[in-house]
């Protein structure tokens, strides 16, 4: 080994570069294996027999005819699988006394929602399994079902009669009790006397995470170690759940998430299908594959949102906010899913958003119904919170008679007030709401559009213009283990990374985050390339296989970069530290005199140096290492952050409402997100664009609906309206930069930001366009019919009828208020 004398020119910095995603070529050209592409010798296929009823007792299951069908190997019921099938766990009991029905993957006695699996057919081909599944004859005793969230909260019909109630848990945060603020009831009482009280009830409709790749699972039980491939976001958590509930030692389980085609939260579940495939494979000793159809995916994959939000905002007459009270009813569906009631709890810290509320109270009642279970969907709790507060701020602006941006400016945390501890107890590290807002206004052409809006209104134009504002923040990087522990979350939030320095100068990094479309391979390569001074192309990112990535907590909650990326930084720093003594030895210098820069170790004050690849080679050869130094510079790190991080941004949306049809057409959308330092602007743009469309889709298009018997009416994409690129416009996006102070890269999460911010921006715009017709709300999705009916709701009627409704009483939050969308306003302007 000879020391290289000439230092090469420093490579271009990778962080901040618009790198095209290195994973895309293989994903786009099909040079990869998705779970459904995996074929094993002797593999058998599963087809599921599902309940058509929302609530029914299984009287009998006749499998005889199905068993004689061509190439059928077996037909199994819940009774056949018994306890070996494990349990689908809830990892976050939000209260100690939470009512949690046991969720057996394949029940043998009773189903609690349509789509539940009661039998499965094992056959030599998927087609033969499907044919035979139709021959399974189930005799049902249909039981009364409860589908409506408010009716369920009244406990008249029980989703699980043996539990005695549909109310699962009531979780509360009160700023006075927590010592983070004042008494909210006093603030509201005072505002009723001499200020403004705005009371609204908003509906967060149920949504379906419509990932591109349907869920699929393959189980190979033929070795001593059982391997499961699954289209999942959470291979590590899945492995834990299998071990914890099926009795197989964790060390005998390998879970592989190969390339996974999207999730949006919908794949962070441990599913009945995975557990059934697992049980059947173990029982038969044969590899098993199950891939769901889209129809099955829509009815049985977990759904998202589904809340009623009762909100009371108190303010002084000039619009200074004084209190916020939030009462939620949240639909769990038939079972408490893995995060389950934790989803609304994640929103609890975000209703106060960027505003300086002196008093705050949040309560959520989670409720069981005979519907598909619900869990995290892109944003998970925070879109609901952001929607509520951003809709309320627009309403407050109307009451005070000022521009919606002005009312926000009056109440938000100023840039010089960071770090700022909020009334919900969160410490916001950095941000500049005014800067992001100024930029967004400029991009939208806010003042010009306001002028146009005025012209259209004055001329009674059939097409009215509305402008919606959303100045959001969110907490992301779902992590700090202590915080999660204090909330009774079942796991920690750390992340693990390791860096392997290969003898040929290439670098393998292993991350516990489990990408399913985010572009981790590219972004993580950029970080490592800069950190170690190696070429972007020389970095390989490995993930998703518990045998390769042995430690990890997977991908959700905008955590991969801010937690997993930071773990990677720490691991690379350790590589450099481990390499220093070897480099010093090679350079015949003291380790104290070695400095590392641009991929080279050099002796301070000299031009002597070695490249990190040479050190890696020296460590590999191990022919001449200093005494006591291990022949490896590979390193790993597990990182647990001390705080979340808080990206924010200002989203402005202009819509045209055709008052003759109620049709809503997006005119312009501009957003300025502050997500701290950016690793790859191209990937960020993709996250923002996709996130925006998903949030806009909640505002305008998507809604999962059941009929009274519990059948999913929106059971295909004919009725569940997923937008395509043809339904969207080109978005104007930009960024301000307030680096996060809670991680060394200064990054903040961006995976959910667009979805969280956009929904209220759009609905605010729709309401703004037609407010002069006496409209103060349109329920989501804002269908043309709903918009048109809102415009004409006051035709010939008393336009003040809605505002004259009595304010919310102090009755039980579980709610017996039948009137949807109740609202009232007291005080100035009412």
């Amino acid at each position, binding site marked *: 080994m000879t020391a290289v004398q000439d230092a090469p020119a420093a490579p271009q910095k990778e962080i901040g570069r618009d790198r095209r995603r290195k994973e895309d070529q293989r994903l786009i050209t099909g040079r990869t294996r998705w779970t459904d592409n995996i074929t094993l010798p002797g593999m058998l296929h599963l087809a599921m027999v599902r309940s058509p009823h929302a609530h029914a007792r299984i009287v009998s299951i006749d499998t005889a005819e199905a068993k004689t069908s061509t190439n059928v190997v077996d037909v199994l019921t819940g009774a056949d699988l018994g306890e070996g099938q494990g349990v689908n766990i809830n990892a976050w009991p939000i209260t100690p006394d939470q009512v949690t029905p046991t969720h057996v993957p394949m029940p043998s006695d009773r189903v609690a929602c349509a789509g539940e699996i009661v039998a499965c057919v094992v056959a030599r081909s*998927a*087609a033969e399994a*499907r*044919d035979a599944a*139709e021959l399974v004859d189930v005799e049902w005793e249909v039981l009364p079902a409860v589908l409506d969230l408010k009716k369920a909260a009244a406990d008249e019909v029980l989703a699980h009669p043996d539990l005695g109630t549909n109310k699962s848990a009531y979780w509360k945060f009160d700023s006075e009790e927590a010592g983070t603020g004042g008494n909210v009831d006093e603030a509201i009482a005072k505002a009723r006397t001499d200020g403004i009280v705005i009371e609204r009830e908003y509906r967060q409709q149920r949504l379906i995470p419509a990932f591109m790749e349907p869920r699929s699972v393959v189980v190979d039980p033929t070795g001593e170690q059982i391997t499961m491939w699954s289209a999942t976001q959470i291979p590590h958590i899945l492995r834990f759940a299998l071990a914890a509930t099926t009795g197989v030692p964790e060390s005998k389980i390998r879970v592989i998430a190969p390339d996974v085609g999207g999730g949006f939260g919908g794949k962070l579940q441990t599913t009945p299908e995975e557990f059934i495939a697992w049980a059947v494979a173990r029982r038969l000793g044969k590899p098993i594959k199950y891939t769901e*159809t*889209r*129809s099955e995916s829509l009815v049985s994959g977990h759904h998202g949102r589904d809340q009623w939000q009762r909100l009371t905002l108190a303010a002084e007459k000039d619009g200074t906010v004084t209190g916020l009270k939030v009462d939620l009813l949240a639909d769990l569906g038939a079972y408490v899913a893995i995060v389950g009631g934790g989803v609304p709890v994640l929103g609890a810290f975000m209703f106060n958003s960027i505003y300086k509320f002196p008093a705050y109270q949040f309560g959520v009642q989670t409720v069981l119904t005979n519907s598909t279970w619900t869990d995290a969907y892109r944003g998970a709790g925070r879109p609901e919170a952001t929607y509520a507060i951003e809709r309320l701020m627009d309403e407050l602006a109307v009451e005070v008679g000022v521009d919606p941006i002005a009312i926000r400016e009056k109440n938000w945390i100023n840039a010089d007030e960071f770090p700022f501890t909020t009334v919900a107890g969160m410490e916001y590290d950095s941000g500049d709401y005014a800067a992001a807002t100024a930029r967004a206004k400029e991009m939208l052409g806010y003042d010009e559009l306001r002028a146009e809006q005025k012209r259209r209104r004055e001329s009674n134009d059939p097409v009215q213009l509305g402008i919606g504002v959303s100045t959001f923040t969110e907490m992301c990087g779902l992590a700090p283990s202590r915080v999660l522990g204090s909330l009774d979350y079942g796991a920690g939030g750390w992340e693990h990374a390791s860096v392997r320095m290969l003898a040929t100068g290439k670098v393998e990094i292993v991350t516990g985050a489990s990408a399913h479309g985010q572009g981790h391979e590219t972004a993580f390569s950029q970080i490592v390339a800069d950190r170690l001074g190696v070429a972007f192309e020389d970095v390989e990112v490995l993930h998703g296989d518990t045998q390769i990535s042995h430690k990890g907590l997977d991908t959700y909650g905008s955590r991969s970069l801010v937690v997993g990326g930071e773990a990677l930084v720490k691991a690379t720093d350790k590589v450099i530290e481990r390499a220093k003594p070897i480099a010093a030895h090679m350079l015949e210098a003291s380790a104290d005199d070695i400095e590392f820069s641009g991929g080279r170790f050099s002796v301070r004050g000299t031009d002597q140096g070695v490249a990190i690849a040479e050190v890696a080679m020296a460590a590999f050869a191990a022919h001449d290492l200093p005494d006591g130094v291990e022949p490896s510079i590979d390193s790993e790190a597990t990182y647990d952050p001390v705080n979340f991080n808080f990206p924010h941004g200002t989203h402005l949306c202009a819509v045209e409402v055709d008052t*003759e*049809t109620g*049709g809503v057409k997006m005119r312009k959308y501009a957003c300025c997100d502050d997500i701290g330092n950016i690793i790859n602007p191209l990937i960020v743009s993709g996250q923002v664009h996709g996130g925006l469309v998903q949030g806009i889709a909640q505002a*305008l*298009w998507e*809604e999962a*609906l059941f009929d009274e018997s519990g059948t999913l*009416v*929106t059971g*295909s994409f*004919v*009725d569940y*309206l*997923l*937008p*395509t690129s*043809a*339904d969207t416009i080109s978005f104007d996006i930009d960024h301000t930069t307030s680096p996060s102070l809670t991680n060394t890269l200064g990054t903040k999460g961006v995976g959910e930001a667009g979805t969280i911010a956009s929904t209220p921006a759009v609905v605010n715009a729709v309401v703004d366009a037609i407010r002069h017709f006496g409209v103060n709300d349109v329920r989501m999705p804002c*269908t*043309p*019919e709903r918009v*048109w*009916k809102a415009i004409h709701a006051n035709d010939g009627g008393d336009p003040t009828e809605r505002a004259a409704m009595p304010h919310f009483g102090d009755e039980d939050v579980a709610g017996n208020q039948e009137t949807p969308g109740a609202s009232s306003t007291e005080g100035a302007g009412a």
Partner: protein
Amino acid sequence: MIPTAFDYLAPTTVEEALSALAQHGDDAKIMAGGQSLLPVLRMRLNAPEMVIDLGRIDSLRGVRDDGDAIVIGAMTPHFEVAKDPLVTEHAALIPKAIEHLADAQVRHRGTFGGALAHADPAGDLGAPALALGAQFVIAGSGGTRTVGADEFFVDLFETAIGEDEILTEVRVPKHTGWGAHYEKFVRVVHQWPIVAVAAAVRMDGGSIAEARVGLTNMGSTPIRARAVEAALVGAAPTDDGVRAAAEQAAEGTNPPSDLNGDADYRRHLARVLTRRAVVAAAGG
């Protein structure tokens, strides 16, 4: 999803197709592009034992001039119909509707006759065919017969085509020089129309001389808005000129109520969209 197993025949002549149909009767289903049939089979909503694919019968494909009408072969894919010079010259309303029909893939695989024979009341071609007074040529074992548009659409997914018959071609009377517009109202672009209006207008001087108006998804079949057509004669091609006539658009309709709107909302839409379609067709 995987359909139930079925047998498959791909005859190359109409005669072969008819004889296969006669042989298999109720157990057979005709495939004419498959854009509606295949999803139905894959979701196992229907399970025919035999699928007879008309895709290889060359004589059913293409557009020809036949004096006062153009003749569109039933198996001509939508995109070929839409770009055919005879169609654009003499039946401009049809390409206007095809432009909004489903998505590009469906327009390439689906066929003109297949869509009409499927008779989905929310299908985009029924209203234009009805408005233009199309005639449907139907072949059976005893030869061919021709049915007018008014008799062709019988009910939801039901036409005058007998169980042992095949739609072979559609004769569209030439509407040379007529303005045309298809006004389709949807929430997302790949959706079936909530309501759509097909309008063709012949102008004379500054006013409407003749108008043809068809409604999509306002009943169990496409509906011809004859009252509107009559009231439009002599009207100025402007919003105000057309408004009164368009107000009659919902008369005699029986629209469905579903997730996208109730019947009253659809009646309202029919009036608004009719006005817009007629004004646009007239070049206003």
